[in-house]
């Protein structure tokens, strides 16, 4: 089993399988790239409307092809049909949004289900025909790379490559319109044309992906890779690359798994592969992942707890709760009976002095201190320049002279 999978993955199982794998990988890449922009333009769900809206087009394309050529399963007819009804679906969503008070999600839901319903009716009509060639049509629902012809796979590969290249060429313009369309318009950019191109590329991905992923699951191809990529980076360029890689890998692996188990629809294996990558990103991405966020939170809590415990010890013997007393005992600041050790005394006065400097910084430079997001979290000497700390120290001792008594006088004496 594993050996077979390795053979498929390393392009050793025949030209046809290789082309299908390559086409699927490129399709995933295109979906990943185009998906980033539909996600950032807040249009992720429109791809679901497009894909479901293609079903009546597929079936009508089949019927037209059947009447004209005698066989219904002619890819050009099916693609033209799905493109046209996909466009019709998008236009209808737009029209409902512009001319009624319905919000976009309701418009999408209405159009999606109506078109899909119509498509299913036409499909069962076709199933009852005695043409003999209707068998492959349901593969457009859940995707089937097993039944894919070599010519189909080649066409998918070339179209996907073209879509990817176009989207990357227009990355600057797409990014601008996604971030701030009104500003882009104020600068004279043709926002509606750029939007139209983004929509056209999305439609193209959906249409060429129907056979591989199927219209029910194809939304995953343009949503999961970009959201997984977002976990790893804050940069648009990197997000596009990671999303392209994620999409490509999912489709490549998913198609290979499907080749191994031809009974499984390839759409399902592809989506589950993408979901695995998404789950890994969600958990383990370095900055935005759940684990990283939890660890950061924990380290923040520990730092604050330690600092507050040391500061309270500075004011005299304090009864510490369990966590801080454990922390400080491990560090050797207090002994097992809760008394300060000689090393602990140094640490406590150092911390008190540090806090006094931070407090002085906050009152002398309120804005800078506010912008400084490490305020009171690390030792001030690690963050601010020596000169600035000297100035803060002078300002503290100046206050001590004028005010006589001061809260921060204690630790300062200890230091000097």
């Amino acid at each position, binding site marked *: 089993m594993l050996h077979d999978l390795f053979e498929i993955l390393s392009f050793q199982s025949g030209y046809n399988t290789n082309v299908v794998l390559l086409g699927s990988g490129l399709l995933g890449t295109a979906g990943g790239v185009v998906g980033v922009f539909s996600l950032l333009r*807040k249009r992720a769900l429109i791809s679901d409307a497009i894909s479901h809206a293609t079903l009546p087009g597929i079936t009508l394309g089949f019927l037209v092809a059947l009447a004209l050529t005698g066989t219904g399963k002619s890819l050009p007819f099916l693609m033209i049909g799905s493109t046209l009804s996909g466009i019709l679906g998008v236009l209808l969503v737009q029209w409902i949004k512009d001319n009624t008070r319905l919000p976009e999600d309701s418009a999408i839901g209405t159009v999606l289900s109506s078109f899909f319903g119509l498509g299913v009716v036409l499909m069962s009509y076709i199933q009852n025909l005695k043409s003999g060639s209707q068998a492959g049509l349901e593969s457009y629902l859940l995707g089937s790379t097993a039944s894919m012809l070599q010519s189909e796979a080649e066409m998918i590969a070339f179209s996907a490559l073209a879509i990817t290249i176009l989207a990357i060429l227009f990355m*600057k313009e797409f990014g601008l319109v996604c*971030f*701030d369309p009104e*500003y882009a318009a*104020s600068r*004279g950019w043709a926002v509606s044309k750029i939007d139209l191109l983004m929509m056209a590329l999305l439609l193209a991905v959906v249409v060429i992906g129907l056979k591989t992923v199927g219209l029910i699951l194809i939304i995953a191809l343009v949503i999961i890779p970009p959201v997984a990529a977002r976990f790893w*980076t804050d940069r648009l360029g990197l997000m596009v690359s990671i999303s392209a890689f994620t999409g490509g890998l999912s489709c490549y692996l998913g198609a290979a798994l499907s080749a191994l188990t031809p009974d499984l629809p390839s759409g399902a294996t592809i989506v589950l592969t993408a979901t695995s990558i998404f789950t890994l990103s969600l958990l383990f991405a370095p900055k935005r992942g759940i684990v990283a966020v939890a660890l950061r939170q924990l380290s923040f809590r520990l730092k604050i707890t330690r600092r507050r415990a040391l500061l309270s010890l500075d004011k005299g013997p304090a009864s510490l709760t369990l966590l801080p007393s454990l922390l400080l005992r491990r560090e050797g600041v207090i002994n097992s009976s809760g008394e300060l050790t000689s090393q602990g005394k140094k640490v406590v006065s150092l911390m008190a002095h540090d806090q006094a400097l931070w407090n002085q910084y906050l009152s002398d430079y309120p*804005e800078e201190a506010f912008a400084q997001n490490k305020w009171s979290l690390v030792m001030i000497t690690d963050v601010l320049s020596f000169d600035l700390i000297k100035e803060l120290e002078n300002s503290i001792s100046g206050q001590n002279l004028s005010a006589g008594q001061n809260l921060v006088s204690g630790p300062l004496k200890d230091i000097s």
Partner: protein
Amino acid sequence: MIAKLLKLQPNKSLTSEEAKRAPLAIEGLSVSYHHKPVVWDLSFVAPEKGLVAVVGPNGAGKSTFIKAALGLIPKLSGEITVYGKPVDQQRKLIGYVPQRGSVDWDFPASALDVVTMGLYGKVGWLRPIRKSHKQEALSYLDKVGMADFADRQIGQLSGGQQQRVFLARALAQDALLYFMDEPFVGVDAATERAIINVLKKLKDQGKTVICVHHDLQSAPDYFDHALILNVRPVASGPMAETFTSENLQRAYGGRLAPSELSGLVAMASE
């Protein structure tokens, strides 16, 4: 008084010499949202240089006025020219600082990326952004005191810092006429000072800034011209002449207490 008010809305034709020279000349502008007129029959000629505050109560159509002047929303009627030509032909001369709330700050972009957008016009269609563009963008971030935050993701900035990023993006265009939509709302003192500095510099360079401003107290300090709006234009002109208690009363009605009014007018005439 009535004669004076009428004189403030003269029926200037856009073909007049003054209108042709003006950074912005508007004649009979009306805009509606959902069958409700928001701006009604507004005519306005911006001074050749200087800082213009657009003030008026909530819902007076201040932001709508700016967006319509920029050609971002459809208008019911009216003519708009920028230096004597239609807005669409003069986009290169116009800078725009939108309201901070108008974009998604979780967008994957750094402060520098956003400022670089101000240079996209110069970069051109399909051309990549080069190091020199990044350098240039950084110099504009520096002008608003944000160079240290160039690499920060924009969502990690404070509200005032985000506003300064928007300002730097507009500066990067090197425009002659700037529109700003409430840049002072919800910002910290450092940002307020940075914006005022930028406004002063723009004024010294002979540029025109048209700025929606919420705070009547500070308007006379920061700006030297005013356009007072309440759906219809109430008054426009140099600050001292425009910020009169009659005009403010007409725009704000009972929303301003008499004591507030006299204080404002005293500030404006100083």
